[in-house]
């Protein structure tokens, strides 16, 4: 293999490039990234960076003096892939021919269909998004957050700490109910309400109001929530439209085998844009968490370098963390597989507890809320348990 082209120069792209070098690849390495920035870390964008507790330099993913011996093509997007010829075409009208291609184009924030280009309406995915939002989070302003997923709940908590008047609109029963299940998500709802976030549950947004600049959010029941700033946090969609017609199999992400290999030899996909086959769950799934990208980067590199003959270890259950107010939330596994959930340590009201989700006797997921030490023990337990087909 003489040339590898990594498309997407963020977490998954950088870590796969690093893994390729770590696994002995010495050929030409090109990283193509649509953003102008060197690879940076996204989790702080809704937490410490938004709060102003860390600066842009702290977000860098590369180590000081790190030398990957790579060509960086930043500020340039890939616009197409000829998978058979293994040629990537770029937005600056050039193209790159490679022997190996790593697709790591991540995801973009989903937007409301009808925001009419109103000023004051934000999504949060990139450093530029975070800079723009930060400028608007002045004390005393009214913020409405649409969507109580991780990013919505984190932005609500951060803005509340910054002294804004925050309303969180969630279509489900509680923030994070989709991943944690309703009973445990109730603890997160209480946390937000106690700290001063106004929660509107089971609500659908029908319209953003205002002329030129947003002035409020209209709900399906006719209620109007006045707002100076609106954050739309309704999920992310994989950046795969540039791959249409490439011959790769596309679904909710680039469909891959258990090692990140695509249908086309010499092309792998990794990170938020990739849906790897997962034996334990059955079917292809995207994992939109930091550690998912890290674990899979090394596997994808091995798949590429071995020509698909390296046998990956079975996938580990997904792990993620979220920081809201002074609370550390940690979760591993799949709550959807459970038929029971029990609090094994602490209590919900005190915002320090550990809950175990079980299917019959078997633990399938664990939630830790300010229980870092105990959670680590449980995480290990779930990560090292034999994988069962789902």
């Amino acid at each position, binding site marked *: 293999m003489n040339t590898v082209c990594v498309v997407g120069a963020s977490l998954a792209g950088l870590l796969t490039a690093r893994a390729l070098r770590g696994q002995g690849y010495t050929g030409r390495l090109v990283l193509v990234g649509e953003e102008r920035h060197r690879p940076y870390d996204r989790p702080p964008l809704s937490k410490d960076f938004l709060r102003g507790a*860390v600066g842009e330099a702290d977000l*860098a993913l590369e180590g000081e003096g790190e030398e990957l011996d790579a060509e960086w093509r930043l500020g340039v997007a890939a616009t197409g892939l000829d998978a058979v010829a293994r040629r990537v075409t770029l937005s600056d009208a050039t193209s790159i021919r490679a022997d190996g291609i790593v697709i790591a184009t991540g995801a973009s924030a989903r937007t409301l269909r009808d925001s009419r280009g109103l000023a004051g309406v934000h999504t949060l995915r990139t450093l530029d998004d975070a800079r723009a939002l930060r400028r608007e989070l002045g004390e005393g302003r009214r913020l409405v957050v649409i969507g109580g997923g991780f990013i919505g709940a984190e932005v609500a908590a951060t803005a509340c700490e910054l002294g804004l008047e925050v309303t969180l609109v969630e279509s489900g029963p509680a923030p994070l109910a989709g991943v944690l299940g309703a009973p445990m998500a109730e603890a997160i709802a209480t946390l937000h309400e106690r700290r001063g976030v106004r929660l509107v549950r089971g609500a659908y947004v029908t319209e953003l109001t205002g002329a030129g600049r947003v002035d409020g959010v209209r709900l399906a029941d006719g209620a109007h929530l006045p707002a100076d700033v609106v954050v739309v946090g309704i999920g992310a969609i994989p950046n795969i439209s540039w791959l249409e017609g490439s011959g790769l199999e596309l679904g909710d992400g680039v469909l891959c085998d258990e090692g990140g290999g695509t249908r086309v030899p010499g092309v792998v996909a990794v990170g938020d844009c990739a849906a790897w086959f997962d034996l334990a769950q059955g079917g292809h799934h995207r994992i939109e968490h930091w550690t998912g990208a890290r674990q899979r980067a090394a596997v994808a590199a091995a798949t590429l370098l071995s020509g698909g003959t390296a046998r990956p270890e079975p996938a580990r259950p997904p792990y993620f963390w979220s920081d809201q107010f002074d609370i550390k939330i940690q979760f591993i596994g799949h709550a959807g597989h459970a038929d029971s959930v029990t609090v094994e340590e602490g209590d919900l009201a005190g915002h320090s507890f550990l809950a175990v989700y079980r299917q019959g006797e078997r633990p399938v997921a664990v939630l830790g809320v300010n229980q870092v030490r105990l959670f*680590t023990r449980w995480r290990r337990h779930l990560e090292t348990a034999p994988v069962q087909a789902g």
Partner: protein
Amino acid sequence: MIPACPLASLPRGEALRLEADPPIAVFHTEEGEILAIDDTCTHQDASLADGWLEGCEIECPLHASRFDLRTGRVDAPPAKRPVRTHQVVIEDDVIYVVPSEEEPNLPPGVTLKGQA
């Protein structure tokens, strides 16, 4: 030299946090070595004594960076900087730590109590 604890009260596979400034974590590896590093992860404010000990490496309990206990080297991101190591002395079955004179690599936002 800071006394940590009697040797017998730190079994293999366990860790201890010393309330120094900054705090120090002392580990007894499965292989029987006793090693000390700064307790605070260099990425964010997490206690490495709460992490997962595997061989001679500690995995941070929050975002799973791994540090080599002998050298302080970071083996996996998101942390970028090594953690400071300290010398361990065992005398009369008591564990002591000789705090390093080097500058600690504290994460952004964390300062020494003495400077706060």
